[in-house]
């Protein structure tokens, strides 16, 4: 069974540009979560998508946005990049629905560097 896949693995952008990160969940998972992990820091929750809808958003500015496609894959867009956006961006997936207790399966991440 394929795991959560993220692309690209590494991304280098210039300040002010836009970055697009992609994530494909495990087959059967309908929820996708995005996290930012700056060097040496903890996981900061960005966004949660379930069944194509944004369910929850972390404390990040509006230039962080995303969407989930009908096949449950997702993309994260970061506009007007700033140097402090440099981080490892992690995508995770889980089964959907409001009941149940489901752990997340993480991808290997996209390392975004803003210069």
């Amino acid at each position, binding site marked *: 069974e394929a795991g959560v896949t993220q692309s690209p693995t590494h991304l280098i952008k210039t300040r002010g540009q836009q970055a697009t990160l992609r994530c494909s969940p495990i087959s059967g998972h309908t929820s996708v*979560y995005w996290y930012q992990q700056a060097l040496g820091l*903890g*996981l900061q929750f960005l966004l949660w998508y*379930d069944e194509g809808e944004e369910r*929850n958003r972390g404390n990040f500015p509006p230039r962080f946005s995303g969407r989930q496609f009908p096949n449950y894959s997702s993309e994260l867009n970061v506009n007007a990049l700033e140097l402090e956006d440099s981080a490892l961006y*992690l995508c995770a997936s889980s089964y959907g629905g409001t009941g149940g*207790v489901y*752990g*997340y399966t*993480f991808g290997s991440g996209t390392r975004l560097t803003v210069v």
Partner: protein
Amino acid sequence: EDQVTQSPEALRLQEGESSSLNCSYTVSGLRGLFWYRQDPGKGPEFLFTLYSAGEEKEKERLKATLTKKESFLHITAPKPEDSATYLCAVQSNNAGNNRKLIWGLGTSLAVNP
């Protein structure tokens, strides 16, 4: 407010020296507690899910336990390959966000040969 605190922040052990990592939590009703392992530059890898106080789970040299206020990850006779950051997360009964996990900052474990 739901909160997860892990201690210590960092731990250095000699190979074979057993120890425990702590995860204390305050949540509005616990649905589940998760332990993950994260290697540098990689995504967290799932280890265990615990659901209720008194529950224990084991995997190789790792054993996770749960009480009403905290969880412990016991590492028995660790090896250098156990070196990683260990993350704890909880899922609460908060009706509006019962799928979002609350994460601790992790314990960075280094095992010297």
